[in-house]
């Protein structure tokens, strides 16, 4: 992709001049690598800025070029996965880059997600944690149509309360993460 391609895309999308300037200030290889991703996926300015922030920060931290980061297998495979629509491809790529940017947060989130799966409450009872794990609370959601169903779900929740996996989730949220990170 050429500088002109980037300029044209930026104009077509109505990007702020600062965003374009920042993009073009990158090494040509890096700018082109992002363009190879952004143009086919029609990434909007807010998402693009998130990606630029994260990519620059990963590059500084890992001593890699942005082109090298974007060439990683999971990202390049997601970008061309024929089973996914454009929107899903972008979601997956953004998530992969987020995981690279926040590796320890992602590891804790994975560990919590694994414990939630092990509790086998889904889909009747949904457990989730806040974005970025801020607040340190486990969210519990369920819906009941009858008193019987309510009692069944409550009983399952009470049983889950005694399971070690549930305790581990709260431990992770409370900072017991040395083994994970």
């Amino acid at each position, binding site marked *: 992709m050429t500088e002109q391609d980037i300029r044209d895309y930026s104009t077509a999308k109505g990007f702020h001049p600062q965003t374009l300037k920042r993009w073009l200030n990158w090494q040509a290889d890096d700018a082109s690598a992002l363009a190879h991703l952004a143009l086919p996926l029609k990434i909007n300015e807010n998402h693009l800025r998130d990606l630029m922030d994260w990519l620059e920060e990963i590059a500084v931290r890992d001593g890699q070029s942005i082109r090298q980061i974007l060439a990683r297998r999971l990202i390049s495979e997601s970008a061309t996965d024929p089973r996914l629509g454009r929107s899903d491809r972008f979601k997956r790529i953004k998530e992969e880059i987020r995981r690279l940017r926040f590796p320890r947060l992602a590891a804790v989130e994975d560990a919590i997600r694994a414990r939630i799966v092990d509790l086998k409450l889904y889909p009747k009872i949904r457990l989730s944690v806040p974005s970025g794990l*801020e607040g340190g609370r486990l969210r519990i959601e369920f819906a009941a149509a009858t008193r019987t169903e309510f009692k069944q779900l409550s009983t399952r929740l009470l049983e889950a309360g005694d399971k070690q996996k549930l305790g581990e989730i709260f431990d992770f949220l409370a900072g017991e993460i040395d083994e994970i990170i």
Partner: protein
Amino acid sequence: MKSFRPDEIVVEQGSECSPIYRNLRRRLPDVPFRFVERTAHQDGNGSTAYDGFGAAKRKLYLTRHKGEFLKKCPGSDGQVCCNYFIVNFASNCPMDCSYCYLQEYLGDNPQLKVFSNVDDLIEETDQTLRKHRALFFRVGTGEITDSLALEPYTGMLGELIPYFVEQPNVLLELKTKSACVDSLLGIDSKRRVVAAWSMNPQRVIDWHEAGTASLSERLDAARRCQEAGYRLAFHFDPMIEYPGWEADYEEMIETVFANISWQSLSWLSLGVLRTTPSLKRVMRERFFGSAILSGEQVLCPDGKLRYFQPLRVVMYRKMVTWIRRIAPTVKIYLCMESKEVWQQVFGFAPSCEKELGNQISYFG
């Protein structure tokens, strides 16, 4: 510590009668003075090609402050508040920490200013303190400037401390990263002034706190203040996480307590690095490539970015462990943290800001 020598001092009409002007004249005799009717507004970060914020630190304005001097510390939405008040006698700071929130907060008005109308400051403060004698005020001067970095030149505290120490319902905290304490040592603080230092390991000071005093200079200054009768406090804030941070921070704590008797400390505070998305934009421009931008910070409900909660809880717990090993009963509080984090770190959270404020005020 880098000594401060501005390129120019701009004096607004009416400020040349103040004691601060006389001090500046005497203490910076080689610096050119320019007199203006009014100080013009100067933009800071409008242009990315020009570091307006950095440039603003090289010109000192002596001007009258037209707004309120004494304010309640805004704290941060939803976080435990320590019931702190602030008096602003200057704006901006001659030092240049890469994480400094003033880069964003004063982005549109970055002039390095010292306020000449000290009488107004004292009068306004006096009205509030007299009106509320039943309340105890903890007042700091280090919100939008460093409390001591300009003191060798302005002599501001030589004007303020004698007033504050006579008030029965106030404790004055001077928070600094400098070692500029010489002029304080001859003033009787009557145990009503807390000299406080922001502390970081020397490696962090070298990386991120340009123009500030070294760790050993800060400790030496603290020791001298202690000997002169000042109460002391340390703020381990902002704690910065990086590979090997544990060894550096643990060593720093050992160094601090090897030099300063912990029994003499009024309080310690802990806080992790806090930024905002817009501050990061400024930092990216002014300190491109700084590793501080790559920390695992997430957006919190108050709009600030902090290390994700379990990670910062780990950091706080380790710091508390290292501190408690040497100083088992020293008062420690968290700055701008939620009740959940307090609970996870200490096993309790203050019930209200009054409780925390009172605990801190009457300690030591």
